[in-house]
């Protein structure tokens, strides 16, 4: 007994205690190198966007005397016709796009998973009623509707950015609800759901503890797609003059403004475009890694 180091004996139980489900998920996520790299880039880029102004000395609203210049030590991404520093603008746009897409994806994912699971679990009339709503949202031409709502926000002033994000989110949950409903139809027939019922689990508990977690891989994949969709939707709105209003910028509006100059002043189009592509790619890679990490059946042997 005396030979055994005390630390080992004392340490063992607490280590077991601490190995919670989320730590397992984290461990599996960390094993996914591409996802970790993408996540690091994502977080770093987001944090760096706050450093852009102190580092380069240019804010996104500032107008410099240098007009239409290519990338240089002073203006890393060059300047546009009226002297905006494109690096400052790109970083501001990155931040705005991230905020909008996270809010959109958050709202759409929560609504879509819960309502989809409710549809699949209760079936019958509940399914029918929610199904009608889903169908309605799916056939609705999203862009015109958002444009109408966009005009109203412009008229009322206020913080239109988040308002637009919430509105987009309220419209984007329908496809996910349909996916989750389908998944739940298959999961609900599994024996472990019957076992949970036999254990006396309530409907709420079955939906949140058993159905949604088992549909999680689809939900996460869909959430990442939604982030991309949200960025693109916001881009389209910005292009049409709705949603984000100057001097506010987003990656979408920058790319759209730079589109005409793609062949003559390439930096106005390709540099914000590259930031946009990297952003969306990273989101997708992180989604991949999360899916693998959250689904214990996918665990790779090491």
């Amino acid at each position, binding site marked *: 007994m005396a030979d055994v180091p005390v630390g080992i004996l004392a340490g063992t*139980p607490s280590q*077991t205690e601490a*190995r*919670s*489900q989320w730590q*397992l998920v984290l461990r599996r996520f960390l094993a996914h190198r591409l996802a970790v790299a993408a996540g690091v880039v994502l977080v770093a880029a987001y944090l760096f966007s706050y450093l852009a102004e102190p580092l380069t000395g240019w804010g996104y609203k500032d107008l410099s005397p240098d007009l239409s210049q290519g990338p240089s030590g002073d203006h890393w991404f060059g300047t546009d016709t009226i002297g905006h520093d494109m690096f400052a603008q790109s970083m501001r746009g990155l931040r705005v796009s991230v905020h909008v897409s996270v809010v959109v994806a958050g709202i759409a994912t929560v609504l879509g998973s819960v309502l989809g699971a409710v549809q699949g679990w209760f079936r019958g009339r509940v399914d029918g009623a929610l199904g009608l709503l889903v169908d309605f949202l799916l056939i609705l031409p999203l862009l015109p509707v958002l444009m109408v709502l966009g005009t109203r926000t412009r008229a009322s002033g206020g913080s239109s950015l988040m308002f637009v994000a919430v509105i987009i989110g309220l419209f984007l949950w329908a496809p996910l609800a349909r996916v989750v409903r389908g998944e739940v139809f298959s999961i609900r027939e*599994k*024996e*472990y759901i*019957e*076992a*949970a*019922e*036999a*254990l*006396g*689990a*309530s409907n709420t*508990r079955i939906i949140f*503890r*058993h159905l949604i*977690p*088992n549909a*999680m891989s689809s939900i996460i994949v869909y959430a990442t797609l939604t982030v991309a969709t949200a960025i693109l939707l916001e881009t389209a709105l910005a292009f049409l003059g709705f949603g984000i209003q100057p001097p506010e910028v987003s990656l979408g509006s920058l790319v759209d403004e730079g589109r005409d100059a793609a062949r003559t002043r390439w930096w106005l189009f390709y540099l914000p475009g590259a930031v946009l592509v990297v952003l969306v790619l990273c989101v997708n890679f992180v989604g991949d890694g999360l899916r693998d990490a*959250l*689904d*214990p*059946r996918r665990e790779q042997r090491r």
Partner: protein
Amino acid sequence: MTGQTSSRTEIPVLSVRDLEVTFPTPDGDVQAVRGMGWDVYEGEVLAIAGESGSGKSVSVMAAMGLLPATAQVKGSIAYRGRDVLAMSNKDLERLRGSSISMVFQDPMTSLNPVMAVGAQIAEGVRIHQQVNSRSARSKAVDLLDLVGIPNASQRVDSYPHELSGGMRQRAMIAMAIANDPDLLIADEPTTALDVTIQAQVIDVLERAREATGSALVIITHDLGVVARIAHRILVMYAGRAAETGMADEVFERPSHPYTAGLLGSIPRLDAPKGTRLMPIDGAPPSMLAPPPGCAFAPRCPRATPLCSQEIPELRPIGNQQSACHHGEDQYNEAEDV
């Protein structure tokens, strides 16, 4: 035998009477259970035996209120005198898992693949008891220990796919006894397991039953399982009871040709050397249109014209009860052997 007579004066934990379960299908009504009853008393092990489709599982699913909504149920099922069929959903939820709990057939699919086994056991505890997550977790460890899972304090965090079939079935049993149920129902608990661990799991079930003092209803088509732990046996055929009695007595002197056929079709160590296994000819009847008389008549070596006209009622023969017009003959013949 004294235990048997004295138990008759108690109130049964679960009492099933005149149960009929019908599933409407596009081809017609499938009569899964066609009028049967059974009681199970405190601390008793009742085996419900029969082949696939004889209505064994359906009759206990009805007792837990877990039949699909399309099923039409008639008769009565009483848990300690309370009618289960008339209970509200809330009352059923309270009943399930705490008073009556269940071990399912296939441990590979009966555990949620995305939850650690300990978390699933703890969930069962927290549904029915006001405890914090820490004590639910330590309860889960104790339960895993009780069902013989080595290193329970580490295994509590394992996911189902990290455990073997036998371990998973032990975890299922731990889940089922987490709230000290009065009645434990095991639906073919060993069917999906390797032969080598079936006996272990049966022992674990028996230990779990002793630890909680609950009654145990074990559904099986494996008479070896019955012989191992059951006090009483109910043999089902085509949705009805064929025979019921004390397990050892029924094994010794079956009073229904179907039971005799089942016993004759399995190898026994105590059979005289050179005894041939006798399969039962034919197949069980379609439950869409069961035969008018005794459902076993078309396959029965003792069948007479009476058998295909009149459904035999369950009646006492010796210490047992048999639903056979020729039950006495069967009973007496068994004695001669």
